């Protein structure tokens, strides 16, 4: 398969992620969109790594594992924050999170 397919798929996933982050108000969905963007990048890294094996080796694929590990850690922290948020204000709508400006 030509590389360009992977690129289009990755681009599409990333844009879905961005639009989701920008438009949705539910914190869990925003979280999922962030994960989608991360995975779009992962896909891109793997694809490029596969394209240029002699030059790049397996650096790209290794990098993907790192990202997945960090993302897993991040998810655990992020979900914990969301749970705490729900406990305090009984909602996961980010529009209620406007205390940052004070």
């Amino acid at each position: 398969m030509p590389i360009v397919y992977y690129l289009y798929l990755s681009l599409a996933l990333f844009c879905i992620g961005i639009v989701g982050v920008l438009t949705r108000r539910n914190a869990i969905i925003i979280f999922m969109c962030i994960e989608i963007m991360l995975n779009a990048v992962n896909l891109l890294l793997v694809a490029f790594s596969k394209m240029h094996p002699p030059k790049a080796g397996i650096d790209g694929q290794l990098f993907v594992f790192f990202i997945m590990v960090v993302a897993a850690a991040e998810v655990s922290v992020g979900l914990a924050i969301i749970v705490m948020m729900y406990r305090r204000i009984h909602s996961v709508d980010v529009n209620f999170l406007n205390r940052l400006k004070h």
Partner: protein
Amino acid sequence: MENVLQIVWLIPFLPLLGFLVNGLGRKYMPKAMVSIVGCGVILASFLMSIWVFIHVREGGGYVADYFNFIVVDKLKIPFALQVDELSSLFLMIITGVGFLIHVYSTAYMHEEKPEHFGRYFAYLNLFVFSMLLLVMGANYVIMFIGWEGVGLCSYLLIGYWFKNVAFNKAANKAFVMNRIGDLAFLIAIFWIIAKVGNANYADVIAFAKAGKFGASDITVITLLLFVGATGKSAQIPLYTWLPDAMAGPTPVSALIHAATMVTAGIYMIARSNALYSLSDLTMHVVTYVGLATAILAATIAVQQNDIKKVLAYSTVSQLGYMFMALGLGAYSAAVFHVMTHAFFKALLFLGSGSVIHAMSGEQDIRNMGGLGKKLKITSFTFLMGCIAIAGIPPFSGFFSKDAILLSAFEENKALYAVALLGALLTAFYMFRLFFITFTGKFRGTEDQAHHVHESPLSMTLPLIILAVLALAGGWVGIPEVFMKGGDKLSAFLSPVIPVKEGESPGHSTELALMAISTIAVLAVIAFSWFRFRGYQRKGEAQGLAKVLENKWYVDELYEKIIVKPLQQFGSFLNDVFERSVVDGLVNGVGRAVSYSSRQLRLLQSGQVGSYVLLMVLSMLLIFVLQFFLRK
């Protein structure tokens, strides 16, 4: 072995020491001690000056180099003092006459509080120090330090009674007028340094003698130096400060007019004579400015009623003569006149101080009269001064004035005629002053009449010494006609000032000129005797007399064409430019910052969504910019 003259730094240093002691200790020292310190240091300087003079006379000049004052790249300005024939002569005049004035001051100022008495002597010593530095400097930069110093001290001393607003204004006027001249002098120094590479007299003169100056350079430099001299030596157009400088105590006037300050310009031009001789244009300018000043000031002096103002204008007029002599190339005649003028003008000023002292501060001669009977010593010495300045042989003024008139005659007969007219005016106003003040009936109040008394010995003794000098001071420059080798002064000065070569008009002509001037002066004196011996106060002056009394309205003219427009320009800048442009700019910056920050504050909404949107948009912007800027 080191030259013994290396020690000449003591001459200016001693008055500086006196200044420090009197200035710092003025609150703790009694008057007697201030007087001893103040006069003592000047006396010591005077004795050293005599010693230096004798040395120079036997062994020629010497340049004492002490340390490098300014070193920048290739430019080196050493702090060096030069004693040669010219400066050693000036040293004697400054310290000698200065010492007499100091002694006189101890009595004249005795009513001042001890603190102010100390301040006065501190200024006086600083003044002498500056003037000594001015004449002893071995380059133009050191001269300029002294030059500024005398300007500062004249300001301090004219405004000595600083509680009087008018006196402060006079002090400001003197300072500002001097600054104008100083600026020109400074530019001239820069110009010289740019051309020659340093400012040492020896190098500059060698440079000039080698003909390395361009014709336009030399003209501009000499003209600028001359403008500097007009400020310090009170020539047209910067002379108006000198009469106003009468606001200071009378001995200060004597010091400014006779020993220091105003002779600085003459000294500077005489010192730069090698430069001036190269530029005909400048020489003509100097001659005619000097002549115009001499006549203008003499006409004003005829109608003044303040005893000190008459003398002040007389000084301006005599300085005009000196400049005329400089312009005619008769440098030694000018220096000669500086010397004799120092004697008789100091005498006249101190005499007028004695009169003012006796009259309890009265300066208007219309309220005096008949003082000759009560102030015997003062009136007699004053008469000697008048005769000397009028130029009657064998008094000193005759010889120096005659030398100047003779050089005018050699140059141009019309010039001579006008200069002679000025000399006659001099005789007229001086004897008018003398007759109105010392003869006739007393016209003051009863109180004053009761109070009139002769001054104490410390005031009359300087008068007597100066009177002797005013009589005999001219005998060092007796013209060849009377005595072979009589002109010792020119011969003495010849290493610095080359003796003028040229045909002498012949002895018979010279004698005839002297006879004419002497007879005319005597006639003028007789005329003023008949006119003023029974002087009575008259009403307002009319016509020409009124114009003269108001000094040709020159002050008013300056007020109109220079001071007023400048003030208006200043208030325009203050009211319009300052308010709208400068303030607008400053306030505008402040307002712009606070407005934009108020707008930017709205961005911080606290909404997570809007933050994310902004983040994405800015990242997009960065990508797009990078894409375009890469190319």
